[in-house]
């Protein structure tokens, strides 16, 4: 295998990383209000959140990407492939993160809320200083496995032309009429990219586990 081929596949790496990181960032951020709505005392908000989460998770990611990239291209809004993929995967991630947050919330000892109430802390500080830092620690392992899944799922962005690893591999393969070695390299790259996430998550979990009240 020539260096040229290797280099061409590796060109996809930054895009895979960028797409995963951007989708994850969107998802982790939008997941917060979505989770808050899901746990709201108002039935209407809860219903909206439920429908959003259900819809986002029930429709396959590839259909979402097509919907956003081809479906929304009305002349008024049009997205680059990378934008469309980020939005699609970001929204799906938001739905999943909302559920991860909700599970983590249930794992936090009720006494933590009581303590902040008894100390007279405001809602903002309650979450900012006490609940959110613990929530993050509890959610971390699930969020990391989700992130690894997302890294691999980002390959479907190749179908709308984001030149990430899978796209580059298929491109090179078509050009050179070689398959096995090229896709094996692509596979290896995905493994190499997911290992650091798994390591970081395990390290963080070990070091942060004792600092949560459950």
């Amino acid at each position, binding site marked *: 295998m020539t260096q040229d081929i290797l280099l061409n596949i590796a060109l996809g790496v930054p895009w895979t990383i960028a797409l995963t990181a951007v989708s994850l960032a969107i998802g982790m951020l939008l997941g917060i209000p979505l989770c808050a709505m899901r746990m709201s005392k108002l039935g209407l908000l809860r219903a909206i959140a439920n429908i959003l989460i259900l819809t986002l998770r029930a429709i396959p990611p590839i259909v979402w990407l097509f919907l956003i990239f081809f479906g929304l291209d009305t002349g008024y809004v049009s997205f680059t492939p990378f934008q469309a993929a980020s939005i699609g995967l970001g929204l799906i991630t938001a739905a999943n993160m909302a559920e991860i947050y909700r599970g983590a919330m249930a794992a936090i000892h009720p006494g933590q809320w*009581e303590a902040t109430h*008894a100390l007279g802390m405001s809602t903002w500080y309650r979450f900012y200083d006490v609940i959110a830092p613990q929530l993050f620690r509890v959610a971390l392992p699930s969020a990391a496995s989700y992130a690894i899944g997302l890294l691999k799922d980002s390959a479907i962005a190749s179908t709308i032309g984001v030149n990430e690893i899978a796209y580059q591999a298929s491109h090179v393969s078509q050009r050179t009429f070689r398959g096995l070695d090229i896709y094996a390299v692509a596979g290896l790259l995905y493994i190499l990219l997911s290992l650091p996430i798994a390591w970081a998550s395990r390290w963080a979990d070990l070091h942060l586990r004792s600092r949560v009240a459950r």
Partner: protein
Amino acid sequence: MSLESSSTTVSSLAPKEPLLRLEAVGKTFGTHVVLEDIDLSLAPGEVVAIIGPSGSGKSTLLRCINQLEPPTSGRVTIRNTAIEAGHTPTRRELMALRRSIGMVFQSFNLFPHLTVLRNVSLAQERVMGRSREAADKVSMQLLSRVGLADKAQQYPSRCSGGQQQRIAIARALALEPEIMLFDEPTSALDPELGLEVLAVMRELAEGGMTMIVVTHEMHFAEDVSDRVIIMADGKIVEQGPSREVMRSPRTERAQRFLHAVKDR
């Protein structure tokens, strides 16, 4: 959690004493009556122990005082602020109320992701608006007072149960409360570790702190508190000067309870 969605209101009243007054306070969960018609008043500096069988409503009574559980009937007055069941207090009123009442829990409820020092300093900064330096200075003084200055930079998980509870006491004291509520502070501790917590509480009581202590520690109730209240089935069945109540209870229910406890 819907701790603020209560049904209570605040209005200003004139009388100066007592420090705390409960009038016909009741609490029901659905059809289940947990507290019924509780009247209680507390003078500044007074130490009251509440004892009684499990499920008698002792903890709920304590939690009704600082509105962790909003009462469903009656009125709670602290100094000149009355909170009436059936009206929702504003957030500011609730925060002011809770600032003047310190609470210590059976399960400590320290913040596990913060160092001991930050645990004690956090609410001073967020609720009282103290600077970090000022808060840390107060915290160090309080930690010395409970004998734990050397633990300041540790995390709570590195401390024993007794140490954690003393830290929790320091955290509550940091807000300079007028009343301290203790909800079975030694029940989660083995007897030896319980002693160091009781020693701190005894010192507080001798220093003139107004305290309500829900406890199973009969010696503490008899020796340290000025007054003992015995509760059963959501009602106060007997109350009076500690020694009198503990040694010669008048009601049959109180006699039965004390008999059972002392026979162990």
